[in-house]
């Protein structure tokens, strides 16, 4: 048996994992990154649209700051987010983008002078400032008041991930590719690493570390059609869940992206609509203004997705052999714009649909896209219940996104949380608590359990076919736990998934019996894990009898701030139980900087909590008083909800902007 020791273990080589790794390495800790695929192939590379950070360089972003970014994010989350975390995030995002610039990301830049943009399908002339020339520019994205989404054409995630991975090369971070984390090693409520399987040779290895970070991305692949890469299977969340100690948060919060192409589900970026693309129905009619007169195509994702389904249900969809769809029209942007700024979209249309998007409309339909849920953590990224286990990026429920994340906020989250969590982990590793107190014997037990599982799968004859179970699961999730949900379907879904879970214990690997590289074996054990994750999603959705953010119940269309302003916390304490255990974590309105209200788009369907009014009154009073005394926005914010003390010291600084210049000597306004 091979045991590899390190200070920090990072599972996942996407943006989040790599940023944690370089961060702890720079603090002087040894680190190893495990990943299923070479890091540059991680799903982060797929992010096309951009990264949010309130730089305010471009004309349409002028005046932007942390406060506005905060407000947009909290509203986007339908008040599900942890507002302190949001504050930490919005303050660090500009730093993250500047750091990435230093690492080499070729962000698109502001070009001074006039240019035309298409806003709400109309040509608008915009004049960029002279002094902003050459600074990082931004584009419009759904759910934001300002143009805040920084980008590199439409390969933002790609450029970011490459810059990050190159940084990891430079720092000589150890990366173990094609190693799959199979289970978490823990003892007495303390995590000590993972058992991993080499996907090429089949070798099972124990990695032991003071701190372990799970940054394995989302779980979109439990759905039949998803924009996610095929490795986004939620195995990271599953191994945390299987400890019985670590918990998952808000698993039912699953986002659907309005514009994935039909049938394959590949995403066309929100940038298409941000840049002026519009949605049309079977008659070629632009229907969004009827539903959302103000934001139109650019309301937040959950809203646009639901409006599209609503419209399809009215019989306005375009029938096809793959079901009904709508049209995304970007022909109005012109060939030049498409070929320069939306080239990946053009490639996708050509390669997967055989059409030219500068001439033809693109068939689209809302499709599973993002997992707001994940391993529930404290603001430090550490699991609330299992010490030494950290999570960040899409794998985590840090809780930045609540019940709906804004486009552009997630790649931003990966890097920001990576920066912060790296510091908290380093602090932990520097403290005596990080001592590794597990014996070789205990480690061996964990390894043996995994070896045994694999032996069972390979030697079991006449059991279940993993593919059959997986397809059944995908279908259930698609049909019954989709964009619109209702009690009857969810009940069905939970019962059927429970049956699948029970059957999955008896999976056998047919035909292909190799212990080494063996795709059939991989399908088998991942299916077992995925069904559990699917159950947490469906069960959480069934229990949550309200509509919030991306979670839309037809039988409970109201957002219920009295009963449901709380996070769903899921765990699986007993391996024999066939349904997860669900508890709730309250969210206290009286501690909010921005109490619940209307988001400004979507339906106004809220059961209000009286606390919201009380808190709003309190806030108004404080604000007015401070304003009268001439306090600045920082002072006001601090009075409402202090958060700076939570940030690592090096990230507490303010952010310079063209309209908030620093003194030349000091890093202050």
């Amino acid at each position, binding site marked *: 048996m091979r045991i590899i020791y390190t200070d920090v273990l990072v599972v996942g080589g996407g943006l989040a994992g790599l940023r944690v790794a370089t961060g702890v390495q720079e603090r002087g800790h040894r680190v190893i990154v495990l990943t299923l695929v070479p890091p540059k192939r991680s799903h982060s*590379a797929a992010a096309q649209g951009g990264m949010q950070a309130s730089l305010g360089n471009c004309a349409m972003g002028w005046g932007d700051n942390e406060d506005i970014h905060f407000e947009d994010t909290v509203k986007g989350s339908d008040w599900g987010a942890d507002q302190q975390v949001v504050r930490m995030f919005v303050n660090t995002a500009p730093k993250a983008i500047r750091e990435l610039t230093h690492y080499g990301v070729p962000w698109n830049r502001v070009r001074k002078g006039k240019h035309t943009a298409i806003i709400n399908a109309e040509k608008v002339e915009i004049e960029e400032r002279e002094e902003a020339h050459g600074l990082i520019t931004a584009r419009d994205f759904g759910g934001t008041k300002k143009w805040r989404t920084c980008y590199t054409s439409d390969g933002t995630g790609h450029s970011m991930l490459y810059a990050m991975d190159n940084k990891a090369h430079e720092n000589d971070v150890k990366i173990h590719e094609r190693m799959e984390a199979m289970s978490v090693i823990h003892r007495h409520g303390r995590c000590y690493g993972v058992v991993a399987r080499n996907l090429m040779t089949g070798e099972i290895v124990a990695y032991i570390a003071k701190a372990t970070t799970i940054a394995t991305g989302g779980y979109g692949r439990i759905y039949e059609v998803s924009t996610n890469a095929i490795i986004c299977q939620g195995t990271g969340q599953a191994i945390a869940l299987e400890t019985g100690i670590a918990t998952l948060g808000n698993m039912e919060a699953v986002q659907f992206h309005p514009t994935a192409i039909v049938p394959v589900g590949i995403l066309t970026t929100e940038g298409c609509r941000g840049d002026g693309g519009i949605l049309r129905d079977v008659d070629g009619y632009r229907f969004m203004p009827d539903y959302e007169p103000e934001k139109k195509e650019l309301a937040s994702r959950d809203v646009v997705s639901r409006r599209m389904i609503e419209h399809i249900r009215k019989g306005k969809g375009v029938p096809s052999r793959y079901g009904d769809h709508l049209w995304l029209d970007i022909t109005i942007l012109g060939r030049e714009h498409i070929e320069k700024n939306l080239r990946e979209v053009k490639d996708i249309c050509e390669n997967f649909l055989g059409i030219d998007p500068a001439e033809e409309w693109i068939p689209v339909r809302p499709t599973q896209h993002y997992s707001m849920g994940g391993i529930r953590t404290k603001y430090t990224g550490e699991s609330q219940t299992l010490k030494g286990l950290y999570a960040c990026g899409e794998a985590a429920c840090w809780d930045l996104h609540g019940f709906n994340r804004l486009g552009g906020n997630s790649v931003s989250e990966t890097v920001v949380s990576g920066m912060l969590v790296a510091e908290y982990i380093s602090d932990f590793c520097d403290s005596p608590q990080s001592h590794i107190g597990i014996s070789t014997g205990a480690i061996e037990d964990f390894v043996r359990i995994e070896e045994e599982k694999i032996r069972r799968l390979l030697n079991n004859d006449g059991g279940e076919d993993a593919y059959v179970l997986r397809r059944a699961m995908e279908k259930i999730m698609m049909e019954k736990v989709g964009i619109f949900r209702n009690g009857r379907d969810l009940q069905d879904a939970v019962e059927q998934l429970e049956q699948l879970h029970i059957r999955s214990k008896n999976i056998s690997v047919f035909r292909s019996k190799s212990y080494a590289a063996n795709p059939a074996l991989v399908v088998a054990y991942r299916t077992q894990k995925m069904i559990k994750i699917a159950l947490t999603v469906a069960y959480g959705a069934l229990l949550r009898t309200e509509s919030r953010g991306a979670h839309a119940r037809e039988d409970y269309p109201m957002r219920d701030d009295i009963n449901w302003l709380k996070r769903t916390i899921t765990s699986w304490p007993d391996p024999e139980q066939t349904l997860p255990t669900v508890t709730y974590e309250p969210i206290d309105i009286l501690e909010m900087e921005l109490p619940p209200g209307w988001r400004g788009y979507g339906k106004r369907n809220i059961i209000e909590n009286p606390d919201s009014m009380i808190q709003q009154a309190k806030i108004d009073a404080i604000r007015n008083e401070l304003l009268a005394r001439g306090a600045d926005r920082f002072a006001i914010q601090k009075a409402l909800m202090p958060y700076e003390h939570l940030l690592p010291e090096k990230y507490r600084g303010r952010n310079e902007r063209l309209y908030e210049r620093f003194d030349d000597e000091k890093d202050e306004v």
Partner: protein
Amino acid sequence: MSEPKPRKLKINILRYDPHVVGDEPHIDTFEIEEAPGMTLFIVLNDIREHHDASLKFDFVCRAGICGSCGMLINGKPGLACSTLTSKLPEEINLAPLPFFELIGDLSVYNGKWMRGMNERLETWIHHKEKELRSINRIEEPMDPDLAEEIYELDRCIECGCCVAGCGTIQMNENFVGAVGLNKIARYKLDPRDERTDADYYELIGDENGVFGCMTLLGCEDVCPKKLPLQSKIAYLRRQMVKTGLNENVTKCNCLQHEEKMPEH
């Protein structure tokens, strides 16, 4: 409505599993009924799910952006996920990308080669001062056109198609390949990278670098991202000859690799 009868595709796959003792390279043939919008991603998964569960291949994004699924498609390197079967003849031959370490069947470990290449060429921004002056301050401006030009070269997805399509590298395994040369062109453009031409000459000024390239243009013709490889390699060649022939080039910054010479 009567649709034309779908084609029966004949998929011939070159198979070999180095982990199985006694396995020999051989061809397996599968018959698949074509469906509209079918890509090789769909075909291969169908084979794995319904015909042979042991078939090894790699897909991650299945959208032509992660660079995992390069293989020889009727002899030509390309991304399987973004190849529509309708653009291919009825009989389709699939083989792993040559040159890279074989994991099994169609799966190769090109990520490992890329890692080596990146380390050798030090494909990261070399700053004299490693730390930003302040992470809080407004970033350095950059010309908008230049930023776009850099991105143009930054789009490489390290799929390895150019390497598999390069005759030079077949004969000289130490050649950096078009992917490597493109990276140098990318950093050379980038004003944030403070390496000089002399520094770059150290990295690619020999037969394993730009002078090894024989302008066969396999790379240019197969690159799925349509990177301007031909043009950039020519550019580097001009620059590197200039540097090599220029007696005045005496300054070698050798920012990070003063002692550590690149291994060839």
